[in-house]
């Protein structure tokens, strides 16, 4: 674990970094591909809607499942001759439960079918769980969910705008959010998981969760970019990238701790109960939280940087930084140039900043760590005391 700690420290100092922003084309491309596949799956295959969305009656009873179970239960249910029964769908769950789904039935038939199932399963009627759903119920849940989604998006847009004083942050966060929900729904369409009201809850919960991560990263971005235009050391993108690197451990940790309980619900819901709301909810959450973590690292900050870089001020800054770099590069043409210590461990391009220097004076002091021999023993550039530094 201390290895992780070391990595954390290196990430923090910018010794180890991945250029998220620099590789944004790749990640955007990947995300666009995923979204397209998701939408394609959604339109081509559609969602496997649970009975709550179709309307009908669903019975569940405990029974020792054998090869003949499906046939037997199908027969006894048909034998009731309930009106509008259609073709009952019989499935077995976990070898200890049987589930029968029928089309909507009339009230008195519901009891008859239940009794028939109870008789076949050899349990009292009270032991048969039933769910009777009007055809419009699922539609209502879905409609409400969509309203909730839209209201939530509008509110979040406003809240993030207020918090970060930056509409572009809201834009980036919302786009990432829509991306998360789309991919989650796409996974459902492609794999064919049943969509139930519990799934809808799960998807709506993802909203809060995905944003939680994004807000944490953006918070760091804000910290790193405060007063950035007053300097000429690095661009907004550089600072953002550092922020992502500095928070990546946090993002991974928060995602892991979020996924652990959800995973526990998923396993218990599947193994112990076989089906039901626990499984549906946790499955949606599991997929959504994972996608949300990905977008909060690879998508949202890059979007923010792309939006911000369009501002004239930022473009001017980029120009200044570029010319600065050119100067430095010219100076570094001398063989003594040692500007890239630790480059060996870098995966990023050479211009990753070490730290976002903020002009507010609350810049974190540099690491007090004495130099290790990481730079092949070369002398390192020293940092002037603050009093001697230019603003």
């Amino acid at each position, binding site marked *: 674990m201390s290895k992780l700690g070391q990595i954390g*420290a290196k990430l923090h*100092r910018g010794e180890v970094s991945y250029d998220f922003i620099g590789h944004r084309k790749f990640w955007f491309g990947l995300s666009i591909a995923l979204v397209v596949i998701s939408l394609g799956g959604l339109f081509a295959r559609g969602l496997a809607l649970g009975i709550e969305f179709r309307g009908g009656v669903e019975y569940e009873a405990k029974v020792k499942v054998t090869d003949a179970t499906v046939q037997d239960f199908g027969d006894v249910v048909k034998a009731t001759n309930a009106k509008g029964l259609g073709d009952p769908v019989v499935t077995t769950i976990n070898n200890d439960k049987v589930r029968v789904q029928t089309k909507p039935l009339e009230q008195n038939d519901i009891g008859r079918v239940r009794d028939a199932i109870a008789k076949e399963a050899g349990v009292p009627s009270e032991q048969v*769980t039933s769910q009777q759903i009007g055809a419009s119920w699922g539609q209502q849940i879905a409609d409400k969910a969509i309203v909730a989604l839209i*209201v939530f998006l509008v509110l979040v847009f406003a809240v993030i705008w207020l918090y970060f004083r930056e509409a572009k942050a809201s834009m980036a966060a919302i786009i990432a959010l829509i991306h998360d929900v789309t991919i989650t729904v796409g996974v459902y369409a492609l794999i064919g998981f049943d969509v139930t009201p*519990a799934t809808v809850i799960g998807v709506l919960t993802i909203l809060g969760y995905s944003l939680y991560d994004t807000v944490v990263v953006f918070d760091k971005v804000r910290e790193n970019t405060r007063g950035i235009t007053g300097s000429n*050391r690095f661009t907004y993108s550089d600072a953002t990238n550092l922020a992502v690197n500095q928070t990546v451990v946090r993002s991974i*940790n928060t995602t892991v701790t979020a996924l*652990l309980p959800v995973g526990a619900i998923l396993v218990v819901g599947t193994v112990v109960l076989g089906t039901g709301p626990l499984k549906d*909810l946790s499955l949606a959450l599991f997929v959504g939280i994972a996608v949300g973590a990905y977008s909060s690292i690879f998508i949202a900050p890059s979007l923010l940087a792309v939006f911000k870089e369009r501002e004239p001020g930022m473009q001017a800054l980029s120009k200044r930084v570029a010319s600065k770099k050119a100067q430095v590069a010219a100076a570094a043409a001398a063989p003594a140039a040692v500007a890239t210590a630790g480059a060996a461990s870098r995966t990023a391009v050479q211009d990753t900043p070490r730290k976002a220097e903020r002009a507010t004076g609350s810049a974190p002091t540099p690491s007090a760590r004495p130099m290790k021999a990481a730079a092949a023993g070369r002398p390192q550039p020293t940092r002037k005391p603050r009093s001697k530094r230019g603003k």
Partner: protein
Amino acid sequence: MATSSPTRPGRSLIALAVVVVLLFGIMALTKTWKPKLGLDLRGGTTITLTASTLDGSGKVTADQLNEAKNIIGQRVNGAGVAESDITTSGGTHINVAVPGATKESLVEQVGQTALLYFRIVYSADQVAPATPPSTTPKPSTTPKPSTTPKPSTTPKASTTPKPSATVKPGTPSATPKGRGWSSVLADATPTPSATPKPSAAPSSAPSTPAATPSTPATNGDPLKYTPDAATQAGFAAYKCGDKQSDSPSQPLFSCDRNKQYKYLLGPAIMAGTDLSDASAGIPQNGLQWQVNLKFTGAGGDKFLKATTAISQRGQGQNLFAIVLDGETISTPSVNNPIPGGQAEITGTFTESEARDLANVLKYGSLPVKFDISSVETVSPQLGGDQLSAGIWAGLIGLGLVVLFCFLYYRGLGLVVVLSLGAAGVLTGSLVILLGKAIGFTLTLAGIAGLIVAVGITADSFIIYFERLRDEVREGRSLRSSVETGWARAKHTIIAADSISLLAAIVLYVLAIGSVRGFAFTLGLTTLIDLVVVFLFTKPVVTLLARTDFFGHGHKLSGLDPEHLGVERLPGQTKPSARPARKPKTPTRKPVGGEI
């Protein structure tokens, strides 16, 4: 939200302890130690009804929904169901939760749209108490909303008083069960309002068809309707329980509640929506309970027309039926035209009978119909399974999170365990108390919300701990890192938690069904998370930083320098080991002015 002062972490802890003691004190006082469990965890039936306006236009108003809720509540309670729970949600839904095993009939009683019509009685016949075929006890199109509380499952007696075999107008005799609304010509009943009374009189049950008026066709006027021969023949063959479509424009064969009498009724002369109000009461100087009716403006005009026509039909024929969902509830007689939009129904009502009839009428005056959106019956056994599965999932999830935190944060993991414990105690006691206070029920979705919240709560600690470590990496002493790290982490935690809270609130307000239970627990735990982080986690870390173990970065504290990738903790009290703060950075490119 009080921030803990850096110097007095004890204060926050004491404040929190006081809160916990208070919560437990209330629990002890009210003797509630268990949360109120939802039906999906203890077994029972949950019915969700969706209300809509009769004509499908516009939304049901809050008043109408509440009215409907009360009426449905009376029906459910009337069905002899104990501790049922009826709530409205989302502006159009009524949720009925009935614990334990329930009869199928309950759903019928509760769920079906109640349509109230007034129809003229053309003939009435006593029927042998038919035993309905066991397979189809009731046609579903004429459901039986029981409007009257039944103390037991005894069937209700006929609403129309009938002398057992010989019919004599004017002598009401209640049916053996005594539940009949023996409506008499209340000649002695004073009328507080000057309105004439239609008094429910015992209807003679003519076994012969009523004298047919000369107008054969109705011409759209139900008052001019006359049953034709085919209808008469159909009525003769009609048995209670046969399927009937309750269409207002058509005549109807109907039975009373007890299926003792069948009636041939004309097309609807009025609908329940013509009523504006109905109430039960004893008139000022009367002794008998009666039901007072108020009609809408148009309804009053219709009623005058109708009563004019009915009162001319002659004794024994001057009856109209109050029909709810195709079932005849009462057949009062009309002796005089009734103008003025107000009327009374008098008879030998008991209080509850009068109230029930008033409710039926009131319900009929609600321009609302219901669709059964979902009926969920969970066996107590499955409920138990779901509860234990939820608890197990929670424990496993909690265990995994704690394990992860110990592995990653080592000594700080202890803080996580303690904080989660504190959050758990707060959450548990609040869920229990809210069950008592506002009837909050813990459902399976709610439990899932609680479990998911474990992750969210742990996230707050992670944000803080990572900040703390960053500060240490920046070269601060641990003591000051605790404060500076907190100052920054605080904002992030509040912002991130606000988003979670926002999501929970939006879900709670806008969603329906089980989503709300989930949203509620999620929101609750997010708030508790904030309280715990501020009043517990931070002060505890402050205190721990003062100890040798943490403050000096013991190997297992999670703050040891090596673990953090820092050469040595600044502020360590080994003087020799205190590094000079060399502001050197290996990767810094020379900056302007240094070239």
